[in-house]
């Protein structure tokens, strides 16, 4: 989206209230979505719930290709389409819904920095594990990613995606890392988050922010997703305060809403043995 258009959009966005029929699009939940997309999608859903903005979740096999930036999830609000958490936060802010207004300048800088930490380490590690670890690719990623397509498109698209991710890993210097090093990085990231959280209920004390939504999205998804082994989730389980943080957000933003949020989230959250 060009900047002029963006400025224009944010202006009209401010004028219109949040519509009832806002929708969030993501890949099929049961047999297509991958760890990283699931985490990003959960982060956005959590953020919108924290803002108390209603959203209907739609599952589409071609969500990735519907998104304006090629990344899922994206939301369709009124006649605008916005993808990824960062722009969505901007968008809701233009509509007058913001979680970070109470923070001072330094806190806001720290919040942004920690959000980049999650993107830079957790998200990249998820991508690495799901596209660069041969076991995971063969057993989970490729079958799931290509499930909506028939032969030969399923192979072509999966290889294309894998090739793209691997080149990205090369460019950012992750290609030389082994799996052990990646787990080590995840652990380091979790330690940093755990230190920052301390004994507070949320990262910036009483009030949840978009950082809490992002962290919850990633940690909860990692904890509740079955991979080829559970080393990744074990890394998080070393940090008790992160676990109780996930449980707290789950309870206060998902369980009470279960009645009206449809079946989507309740079935997912019911099979979360790792948290209870």
């Amino acid at each position: 989206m060009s900047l002029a258009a963006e400025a224009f959009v944010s202006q009209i966005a401010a004028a219109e209230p949040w519509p009832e029929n806002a929708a969030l699009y993501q890949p099929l939940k049961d047999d297509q979505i991958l760890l990283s997309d699931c985490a990003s999608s959960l982060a956005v859903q959590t953020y919108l719930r924290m803002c108390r903005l209603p959203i209907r979740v739609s599952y589409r096999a071609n969500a990735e290709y519907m998104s304006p930036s090629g990344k899922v999830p994206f939301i369709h609000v009124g006649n605008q389409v916005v993808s990824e958490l960062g722009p969505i936060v901007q968008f809701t802010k233009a509509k007058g819904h913001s979680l970070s207004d109470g923070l001072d300048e330094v806190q806001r800088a720290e919040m942004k920095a920690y959000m980049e930490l999650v993107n830079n380490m957790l998200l990249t590690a998820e991508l690495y594990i799901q596209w660069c670890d041969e076991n995971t690719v063969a057993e989970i990623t490729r079958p799931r990613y290509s499930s909506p397509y028939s032969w030969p498109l399923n192979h072509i698209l999966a290889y294309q995606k894998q090739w793209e991710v691997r080149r990205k890993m090369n460019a950012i210097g992750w290609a030389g890392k082994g799996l052990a090093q990646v787990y080590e990085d995840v652990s380091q990231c979790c330690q940093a988050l755990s230190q920052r959280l301390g004994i507070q209920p949320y990262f910036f004390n009483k009030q949840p922010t978009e950082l809490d939504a992002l962290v919850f999205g990633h940690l909860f998804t990692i904890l509740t997703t079955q991979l080829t082994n559970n080393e990744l989730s074990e890394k998080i389980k070393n940090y008790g305060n992160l676990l109780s943080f996930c449980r707290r957000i789950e309870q206060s933003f998902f369980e009470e809403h279960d009645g009206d949020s449809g079946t989507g989230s309740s079935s997912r959250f019911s099979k979360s043995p790792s948290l209870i």
Partner: protein
Amino acid sequence: MAAPLELYCWKGDWGLPSVDTDCLTVLAYAKFAGAPLKVHKITNPWRSPTGSLPALKTSEEGSVSQPSKIIIHLRKQKYNADYDLSAKEGADTLAFISLLEEKLLPALIYTFWLDSKNYVDVTRRWHAENIPFPLNFYLPNRIHGQQLERLRLVRGDNGLEPGDDVEKELYRDAFECMSLLSQRLGSHKFFFGDSPSSLDAYVFGYLAPLAKAKLPNGKLQQHLNSLDNLRNFCTNILTLYFPSEGRDPPSQKTSSQPEGGDCDNEPNRRRNQVLSVLVALGAMLGYAILTGIVSIQRVQAQGALESSHRHQHQEEEEEEEE
């Protein structure tokens, strides 16, 4: 203590100890931690033990190349600038380094390697002048390609032309990042109190080239210059930890830019001519041998006597052919 560690990094210019962000980071960290390094400032990355710069040559573990790994290695050798940080400050360090990598690095790559004016006038020129022949014809383009690829992949879309939209988007993120850093720094001397830590080294590495390079298209620079505390932060580190570099540039600048460039080129040109003639000759000869226009026969020892005049004959043939 064994022999001092050896660090290979890009040489400096513009009043900086090195022109490369990663090299600056490592150099600054080493100074902060007081690590005695033997620094090789080179302009040919192929002469580094890992093939890329910076590289730290260690006795036990071979060579390491990424700045984060080099810093970890120095830390293991008890050169730790982060010793006084609390656990929370350590976490903040990690977070702000991520912020730099995600938000500022793409804009820096854009400004130095993609913005056509800056690239042609400063970046490519510097590399072409400093990298030794014949690599100076090859390496700048190769690095350019790598940086472009990196930016494209990090942004995750295919169209990457140096256009207004991409630039504005990258610069908006970078402006925000610099403003956040400036707010975080406040009126402190360093990010965590009075002594520098690894975060200071990283921020210095990212910002110093921007503060010192003379770029024709300097939108990012202008924004940095408007943030007084960040600019002072960079000059402070330069004067405190790299005093020799701070003094050099005025004299170096005046002498090396206008005249030094020209008289450096003269001897090179003669050498280039000789070398290119040699390369051409070699290529022609190689082609002749490969395609069989000229053939070289191995002569067995037993047939040496008999072959002596055949050999002569052959040589004549060769000359004719050539």
